């Protein structure tokens, strides 16, 4: 029987999933901005800027929501992550600041395109590195006494964590390419991004294999989730092949969602292994209850508004 704390942990994971699917694709757009090439180079960049412009701030709030819910409902987990992963998280913040501001500066004639693209590359890797460190069970509830390197570098400076970082980047770039096939109006531009999606899809697969191979312990993966993820991946590839872009978008989103939830299921009931289970890290019951009420009330406002935003900006050229 899942507890109230489990429910809130699931909401946090859902918020993180939304961030990956929406905000992640905005980062992925930056990757394709950096790699724009061929005769339609500037059209590609314009399309990306156009697609990200109205939505990136809203997409970005999912990360903030996940953070806020984490420190409200699981304060010990937030504190131990913030201590052990201070370095990559601070670097990630610098990346977030540079990405966001360079993006608007560029749109308002201030230059900064390069900064936007490079920050889009580095930030997802650091996010993935941090997630990787948590998944590997390298974040202790109380920081180990010892030299700086042991306490603040070792937890995340591992091949596994970096593999997860690059995996995250590949997923974001893949999502962006798939979504952009739907944003593009001209068939050539659509083909450009179809091609990019079909290249980055296998890259996602290759990185998944590497991540599992590097997992410090025997990977605690759930066979059924892996099978479903593989099925979704094949589905994406098939629909891209057949140019069924709407289907491809749905399948890609399902594929990445399953990856995130696969991680969550694999480490359940741990929130921050090896010390903190969801139950141990949870705030007092009253806080959990009130937060759940606030989230449900917030959702009533949020989802219709989000739907409206997407309908205004994303509905016009879906056929």
């Amino acid at each position, binding site marked *: 029987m899942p507890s109230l704390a489990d429910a809130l942990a699931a909401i946090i994971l859902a918020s993180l999933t939304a961030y990956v699917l929406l905000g992640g694709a905005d980062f992925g757009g930056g990757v394709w901005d950096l790699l724009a090439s061929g005769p339609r180079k500037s059209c590609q960049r314009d399309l990306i800027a156009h697609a990200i*412009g*109205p939505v990136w*701030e*809203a997409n*970005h*709030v999912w*990360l*903030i*929501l996940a*953070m*806020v*819910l984490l*420190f*409200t*409902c699981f*304060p010990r987990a*937030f*504190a*131990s*992550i*913030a*201590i052990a992963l*201070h370095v990559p*998280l*601070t670097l990630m*913040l*610098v990346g*977030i*600041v*540079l*990405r*966001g*501001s360079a*993006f*608007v*500066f560029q749109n*308002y*004639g*201030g230059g*900064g395109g390069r900064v936007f693209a490079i920050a889009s590359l580095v930030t997802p890797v650091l996010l993935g590195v941090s997630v990787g460190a948590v998944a590997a069970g390298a974040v202790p509830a109380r*920081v180990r006494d010892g030299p*700086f390197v042991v*306490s603040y570098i070792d937890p995340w400076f591992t091949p596994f964590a970096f593999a997860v970082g690059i995996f995250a980047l590949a997923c974001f770039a893949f999502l962006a390419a798939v979504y952009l096939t739907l944003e593009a109006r001209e068939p050539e531009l659509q083909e450009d991004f179809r091609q990019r999606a079909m290249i980055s899809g296998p890259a996602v697969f290759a990185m998944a294999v590497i991540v599992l191979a590097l997992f410090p312990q025997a990977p605690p993966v759930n066979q059924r989730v892996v099978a479903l993820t593989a099925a979704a991946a094949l589905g994406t590839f098939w629909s891209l092949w057949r140019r069924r872009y709407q289907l491809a978008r749905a399948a890609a989103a399902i594929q990445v969602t399953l990856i995130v939830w696969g991680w969550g299921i694999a480490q359940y009931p741990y929130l921050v292994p090896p010390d903190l289970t969801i139950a141990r890290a949870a*705030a*007092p019951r*009253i*806080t959990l209850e*009130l*937060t759940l009420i*606030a*989230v449900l009330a*917030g959702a009533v*406002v*949020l989802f219709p*508004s*989000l739907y*409206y*935003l997407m309908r*205004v*900006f994303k509905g016009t050229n879906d056929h």
Partner: protein
Amino acid sequence: MSDVLAARSQMAVSLAFHIIFAVIGIAMPVLMVLAERRWQRTRDPIYLDLAKRWARGTAILFAVGAVSGTVLSFELGLLWPRFMELAGPIIGMPFSLEGFAFFTEAIFLGVYLYGWEKVSPRAHLLAGVLVALSGAASGIFVVIANAWMNTPTGFTLTNGSFSAIDPIAAMGTPAAFPQALHMTLAAYAATGLGVAGIHAFLLLKNRTSAFNRAALTIGLLVGAPAAVLQPIAGDIAARYVARRQPVKLAAMEGLYETRAGAPITIGPGIRIPYALSLLAFHDPRAVVQGLDAVPRNEWPNVPLVHLSFDVMVVLGTYIALVGLWAGWLAWRKRDFATRRRFLWALAIAAPCGFLALEAGWMVTELGRQPWVIFGVLKTADAVTPMPGLIVPFTAITLLYCALGVIVVRLLSRQIVRSPQA
């Protein structure tokens, strides 16, 4: 520099930077909506032009506000993990609500900025109104969290940890109302007079620009009433501080000894007898607690808090007078644009609201030291165990300096390009 000092400085830089963009994010939507509404009513194209130009500038400022705010929500944990561990379950509530206010704000901002041609005029105006409302709401929610740090309520303290917590009671903390009121007014006063002041300056150079006139009027409409009300809100805040945080009040006023009929000391040398007792308790004979009531290691940095308070009050008085002047001219139906002396006074007032705002936060935050949660948790006990905090402090400071320069350059280009006809 010690690690605690580096952490405090990093927090101070991050907040002082963010607050500028936050207050603009709270107030600019109101100005844009007023301009757009006037356009819809009068069909005078100047107002549409104004709303669109303001929207362009605001997009830049909003983005910087959003990223610097993200930095803050991580920094609360990165720098003060012990604070968040203890306080998260209690003050997470306003932060969670704020999260949803951010969503509403960001969503309708997207509609407002990019949707001029995509939604109906009414829906567009409504989106602007929603941005303005949710901006004010997000400001109020964070300030409630800060108020709780000043007057913590809603828990029982046993052996350094909380029990019987009550997040709803914590949101009703006594400092919440005065701080939220004073802060919200500060946002409208600083931004409104900032805009009016910039256009006053441009009018001094070119008296006939209808564009600048329109902008100045709308800026005043928002800024002047708020500036006039601000000393009253400040007085309410001061009386709460006198009751709940007597040490802070003593530091604000540089009052070293507890005494009845306490005076106000301004700068070195000017003293107004009985004024402090009168202001803080509305009774010239009231006893005001001095710094001598607590041991020295619980004093904040008295000269700095005192100076910041004086700066805020002097600037606040000045902009309130400018606001009254504007009200007088409006009441007599005089044309602002032809009054050179008024335009100069207004141009000088442009930065004053922002400076008062920063000074006010220095009072609140420095005056709370050495506590992060007043009377409960010392700042030095809340800091992260990670050494070398001077490195992130330096990095964030340099990053924000660079961002500040770019933003100012982009915006001044926008302003210089504004139509002078």
